[in-house]
């Protein structure tokens, strides 16, 4: 296990180091698919320059990182490449966590196996054998570290990699069972980009399950723990925000970071669903549709938490995927994060008829993005509709990718019923609508 992992690390580092030194790095860091206005390195440099001059970095309309991030880079700007090279390895923690999680569950699985006569035959296939599970951490690491999306994002020095690392650490701490650290890291992730707020529910559900506290609104133990966890979370969020205020001496960053995320003023094309819509829209509908679009990220938390309350880890995966599809400035780095989790559900793949089709669609879209961008921006022969069509297809593929494991989960012994298809059709329709 250690040897292949080391080999993997060396390969991953080599690829990144080579790309950093090649002329491609500059090209990649300009691609709209890889960097967004939120996390472009160019903007971080601009913010740093402003900070050094004693001007508030938020005084222009260029810089949208959080204050903690800029102070982090204030000290490490000379080592930026190393920071970006290292950040993906935090996600490696994921592999360890999944290992620990799965080994803990093996016994339960084996219990299922003993009682297998109670389950239909196909369920047996869903119970992972220890040998398969042994490789899951390696697979997760491989899916993340060698994923071209991660590599591109890392080479472009998009700060998305750091956000991913924070989320990965959060998941790691959660699965390790440390409520305090998990709350703090969740607060940090929320502070970075708001949307991880929705991960609160799955984390809470996980701890409840772990502590054998039933989800029952009338039980005091439930409320006790919920309040405890919420207090850790909100408390650290307040501390972090306060810290930013004291570092910067003003509240400028609130509109500049969170206002920017929520009101989507920058309509540079990206792989998300927002830009085309809001570029086409009449101004007086803007507020309404911003609410409609933003609610997508948060709304699914409720039905999913109800349906998946027995499977909080899977819920975390679903939430991360939904965030990356519906967030206002998505990049391929966000996509890479939830894709890294896919191998963890590999036992569900044998029921996935269309996984091959979906991967083909995602692959083709990734190739078509730069081509259509070239035709639109440089050659002037295509237009934004071409590019947006591919964006839609890409998001459709992503939606399909996450819906499939979800619907297939119904067959799992832990089981859930047909109502999930309501969610499925609602996500699908909303992506069709947009």
């Amino acid at each position, binding site marked *: 296990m250690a040897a292949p992992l080391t080999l993997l690390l060396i390969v991953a580092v080599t690829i990144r180091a080579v790309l950093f030194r090649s002329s491609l790095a500059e090209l990649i860091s300009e691609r709209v698919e890889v960097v967004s206005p939120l996390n472009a390195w160019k903007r971080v440099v601009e913010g740093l320059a402003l900070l050094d001059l004693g001007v508030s970095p938020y005084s222009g309309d260029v810089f949208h990182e959080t204050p903690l991030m800029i102070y982090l880079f204030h000290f490490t700007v000379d080592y930026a490449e190393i920071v970006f090279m290292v950040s993906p390895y935090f996600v490696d923690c994921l592999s360890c966590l999944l290992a620990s999680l799965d080994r803990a569950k093996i016994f339960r699985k084996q219990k299922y196996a003993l009682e297998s006569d109670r389950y239909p035959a196909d369920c047996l296939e869903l119970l992972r054998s220890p040998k398969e599970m042994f490789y899951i951490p390696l697979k997760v690491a491989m899916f993340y570290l060698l994923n071209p999306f991660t590599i591109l994002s890392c080479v472009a020095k998009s700060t998305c990699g750091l956000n991913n690392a924070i989320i990965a650490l959060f998941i790691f701490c959660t699965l390790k069972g440390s409520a305090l650290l998990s709350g703090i890291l969740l607060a940090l992730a929320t502070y970075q980009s708001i949307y991880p707020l929705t991960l609160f529910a799955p984390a809470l559900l996980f701890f409840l399950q772990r502590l054998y506290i039933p989800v029952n609104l009338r039980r005091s133990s439930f409320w006790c723990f919920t309040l405890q966890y919420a207090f850790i979370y909100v408390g650290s969020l307040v501390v972090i925000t306060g810290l930013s205020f004291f570092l910067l001496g003003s509240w400028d960053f609130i509109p500049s970071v969170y206002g920017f995320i929520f009101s989507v003023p920058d309509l540079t094309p990206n792989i998300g669903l927002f830009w085309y819509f809001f570029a086409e829209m009449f101004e007086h509908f803007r507020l309404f549709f911003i609410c409609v679009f933003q609610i997508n990220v948060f709304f699914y938390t409720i039905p999913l938490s109800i349906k998946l309350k027995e499977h909080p880890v899977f819920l975390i995966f679903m939430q991360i995927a939904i965030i990356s599809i519906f967030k206002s400035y998505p990049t391929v780095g966000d996509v890479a994060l939830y894709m890294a989790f896919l191998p963890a559900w590999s036992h569900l793949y044998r029921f996935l008829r269309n996984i091959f089709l979906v991967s083909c669609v995602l692959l083709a879209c990734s190739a078509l993005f730069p081509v*259509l961008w070239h035709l639109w921006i440089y050659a002037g022969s295509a237009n934004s509709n071409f590019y947006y069509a591919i964006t839609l297809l890409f998001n459709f593929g992503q939606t399909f990718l996450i819906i499939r494991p979800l619907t297939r989960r119904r067959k799992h012994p832990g089981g859930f019923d047909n109502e999930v298809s309501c969610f499925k059709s609602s996500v699908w329709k909303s992506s069709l609508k947009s």
Partner: protein
Amino acid sequence: MGLLSDPNRRKALTNLLTRLNAPICMVCYLAAIVWFMGLAFEPFTLRTYMSENAMGSTMVEERFSSGERALSLAKEFDAHKRKAGGMPVEWLVKAMQARGLEVFTQSFSRKLPFPDENKERYMVRGTNVYGILRAPRAPRTEALVITAPCSPGNSDNQAVGLLLALAQYFRNQIFWAKDIIFLVNEHDLIGMQAWLEGYHHTNITGMEYSPLQGRAGSIQAALSLELSSDVITSLDLILEGLNGQLPNLDLANLFYAFCQKLGVLCTIQGKLQRNDWDTAEGYTHAAQTMMLMVLKQACGRSWGDHGLFLRYHIEAASIRGINGFRHYKMDVATIGRLLEGMVRKLNNLLERLHQSYFFYLLPSLSRFVSIGYYMPAFGLLAVILLLRVSFPGLDHFTFFNPSGPGVLTVLTPVVISHLTGVALYLLPVHLQEMAVEHFPVSETEAVVLTAVAIYTAGLALPHNTQRLLSGEGTEQGWKVLKLTALLYLAVLLGCTALINFSLGFVLAVTLVPITASMTPHMPKALSALAMVLLSPAFTILYCVFIYQELIEAPVSVGEGWMLFLSVISQGILDHALYGSLVYPLLALFIYPCWLMFWNILFWS
């Protein structure tokens, strides 16, 4: 959706696709060819029409009449050109200044990666001269360009003469709303490249040039003029630019409209339009014209000086005067009037040309095939690849199955093929000195022959090394490799066809049949021969022969071979000089992809 999620219907569909896979593929291929050939049939094509309102009908009379002056200027230019042995910079500057233009010069130099034997140049040094006629009526934010080349020998003198006469005439008009730049460029495309890079402050090809001293606004359109005789019988319009990019169809429409108005014979691909579409000859004629356009577009080079403008989002076309054996001759004044009309219409533009089509094929000047009509032909070919992908892909757990073939079995041939491709891309130019030292060849021959040698060596290399590295191949192994290669080819051809339809289609026509049917169980010798005959290099060879056949200058096998070699050297040069993408595409992607199929054939 319902079709895919209902297991029974899905099963029926899958069964149908698996059982009838080969016949469906064959039908698709034939349908694609028939569809494509049908595009030239007149009832299936649309009549061209002017989409841009600003260039619609206006009651304007073209008054340019100084044809005689243009000819005398041409003679003078010729004399000074001979005396200077190149661009007569001083004379031209004076001549332009005398006509009231702001005149500037730009010098440039470029060392070619290896000598260009077609044009006999290696170290290129030259000067561009351009004069700007400032618009009296508007802020100087937009410009039009008229160019004429200063070519060696007797050619294109009349173009420069006409350019100067037009400048003088335009100077006296008051209705110009855009600056007009009159550019005389030396060393055809190299000079044009230097000027455009200087104008846009870019340097993408490593050319050395002096910065431009005077600039006008953003260039909206450009016309390039090639005129080598005092009288002409017809005008030929050239549209194909770098990487197969085409200008907006409205530019062609504009040219056609003025030719009709002034009664000038106009051709495209050197072919006159015929009216008898319902006869076999009429159809063949249209098909030939369209095929010529496809071949020219596919080769990705700029076929006139206008070709480089297109990269900067400037609509441009070349107009070439042809003096053939016809009775009806026109003088230079008529061409001057035609240009005057076109420039005045372009002057009326309120925004860049964008209304009409950018993706089209022209079976004649008055008929066009738009992207919606020709894409299905390519789509039918791409469907074959997808059908073949779905065929092995249906047992879809090959990727996720732990007992399936290791990543290494697939990765090794892929990596080796691509390394061969990289060698094909890098080595010919870098090894030329060594080759010249050891073999009695010139540099150009060295480059081309190295390329051919690496290409041939690649056929021997991959499958042997792969066997050494990963041992015996398994049945699963080649299936996964084929799946990967088919997907790769489909994505590759799809992207190519979007950027340059003709190239994508030509490659698809030759690559799809053999790649779709490739398995290791076919008779080795026969299928190896078929594969080689349908390989990318042979595709180029066929294109050379077909092209020669279509321009009615058929060549023998030996001449064809020499032409083939020169086409390769031109391709490499175009890539180095102007950034044409065909050579890197073929070397780095198409050839390795083809090698992957070659691997499958010799899988054991």
